[in-house]
Structure formats: C-alpha cells, structure tokens
C-alpha cells in the first residue's frame, strides 16, 4: 500500500496528474448507480393511467389482491406464498384448480367465483372487476 501511494506521490511530483483531478477520476460508477437508483425509484404506473397495458393492470391487481400471500407468482414482489399452487408457466398448465381445462375463459370464470367452481375452496371469493380479471388473465398467460 505504502509503496503504491509513494509511487503515486512521485508521479504527482513529476507533474503527472490524472485527468479531471483525483476526486473526479472515478465518477462514472457512482453516477451510474445514482441514475439507476433514481430510475428504479421513480413513478411506477398507476391503475388509473390511460395508457396502461392489460398485463400491467393485472400485475397491479394481483399485488393489490394479495394473491402472493398464497401463490408464488413470477415478477410480483413478495409473491412467494406456499398455500396454493405456484402460478409460473401458467400458459402451459393444463387444468385450473384440478377441475377446469385451462383456457382464458375458464380462468376468468374461476377468478370470478372460485368457491362456486370448487366448493369448500380456501381461495376466497374476491370482488374483482371484469377489468381486473382480464388483466390477471393477460398477466398469467404471459407466463409461458
């Protein structure tokens, strides 16, 4: 360490200065981190935004409806539940709740009223709007 700093000192004395000065010589990494931090902290979409996609709406609906407390869902923060089945690769699943063939229409039906499709179901009957249901269906069918 001492030898290295000594060398640097010698170079400094000889008039070899790092371009931009010592303090600003390595500014790119922290600056990049700062920009990344700001970008990731800024303004995620809202459900009321006019230009929101169906998938984004589904993502918000699944977060708001706390689906992740029982299901593992790819791409949703904290969705690591171990109560119901994991929902990854949903587009490739064959059956819904073991009783319905997996089609977008059937999934919408099931989400509308899980306890009618499977009586005694632990999955509650949530008051999902049709828009939310279409969003959730779009989000899940994105999971190939």
């Amino acid at each position: 360490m001492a030898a290295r700093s000594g060398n640097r000192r010698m170079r400094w004395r000889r008039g070899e200065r790092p371009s931009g000065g010592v303090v600003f010589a390595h500014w790119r990494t922290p600056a990049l981190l700062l920009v990344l931090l700001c970008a990731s902290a800024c303004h995620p979409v809202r459900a009321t935004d006019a230009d929101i996609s169906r998938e984004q709406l589904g993502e918000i609906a699944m977060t708001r409806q706390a689906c992740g407390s029982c299901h593992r869902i790819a791409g949703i923060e904290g969705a690591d539940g171990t109560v119901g089945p994991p929902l990854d690769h949903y587009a490739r699943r064959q059956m819904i709740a073991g009783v319905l063939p997996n089609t977008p229409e059937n999934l919408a039906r099931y989400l509308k009223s899980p306890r009618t499709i499977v009586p005694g179901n632990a999955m509650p009957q949530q008051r999902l709007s049709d828009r939310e249901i279409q969003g959730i269906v779009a989000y899940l069918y994105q999971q190939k």
Partner: protein
Amino acid sequence: MAGLHLRPVIAGWILGVTTCALIALLILGYVMSGRGFRTGADQPHSKLFGWAVHQTMQNSVRLHAPADAPRLPLDRPTLLAGMRLYEQRCIACHGGPGIDRASWASAMLPTPPYLLGSRARWSHAQLYAVIRGGVKMTGMPAWGEVSSDREIAEVVALVEAMPRMTPDQFALLRDEAARGSAAKDPDAVPDATDRIAQSPAHADRRATQP
C-alpha cells in the same frame, strides 16, 4: 516529512466528506420537498423500493422476535377466544380461509396479506412479535399496546391453527365464536376444533427445537 504528505490527504478527505454530505442533503431535500417521493397510495412501490422495505421488515422481525413468546395449546377454548379477537380485529384486513377481506383492504398499500401461509412464513416467536408489536408504515397496529400477552397468544394460536382446518371448519368455528355460547355448550359444534387438537400433525415442529 510525513506531515508534509499528510496534508493533501486530509484536504482530500475533507473535500470528499463535504461533497458526500452535500449530495446527501440535496437528495434528502429533493425527497422531502415531495418531488422525489409521492406518498399517494394509488401508485404502487417500485420493485426495488418494495423489495427493500419488505426485506427490512422481515429482517427486523427476525432480529427482534422474543425468545420466550408464550405458547398456548391449540385446544378448543383457546381457538374460540382467538377467533373472537380475530373476528373483531383481524378478519377485515386479513380475511380467512375462503373468506374475503373487506372491500377496501385491496386499496391499502402495502396491502395486508392473507394469513393461511403465515405459519410457513414465520416462526411462532416471529408471529407473536408481529402481532404484538405491529409493523410501522403498513397499517398493522401494535396490538400489544391494547391487549394482554394472553390475548396476543390466543390470536397467534388461531393463526397457527388456520392451515390445519378446512375452510368449512374455520367457518364453523367462526359461527361458534360469534354465538359466544361455546364455553357453556361444548357439544354445539362437535368437531371443528377437536379434530385439530387430536391430530398429531398439529404439534408445531419448531416447538421441539430448543
């Protein structure tokens, strides 16, 4: 000789620390002015921020969970007492097996979770700590401020018994607690809780650990 070369080092240090402090102050000012952070709960957290606060909460709970959290047997009177409290204080935000939350719970940010999986997520002591101490900035009250340790333990018992019941058994227990006559009439609903108490699986694996 050494002092001669130390001087630029100290000067650099002061310059560096001052610059960092200045930048930190600028960021703080930007956030506190309301430009850097929107508090409206209609806008979800960014993934990074949501992840960071969630991790902080989980680590804090793990760190501060008491070693001596009281544990009640999952028997009928305990579960009925726990259910009465759950009905009053918990079910609106957290729902139950097959039971929806209040319609406004999904409008909260962060939104309160369903609790069927919380026994797998948290240890007994951690559940006790969360219920007694609450969670800052989430809407979860510190129930220990307004309840006895026994009441907290009763709710913990109910939450831990939840994944051991069918949703129908949970509904029966709920009815029974609502009638409030369980203590006088133990045969009113014969098996909602008895089956749990008899099941060898109900013994918490963590209970055997020191």
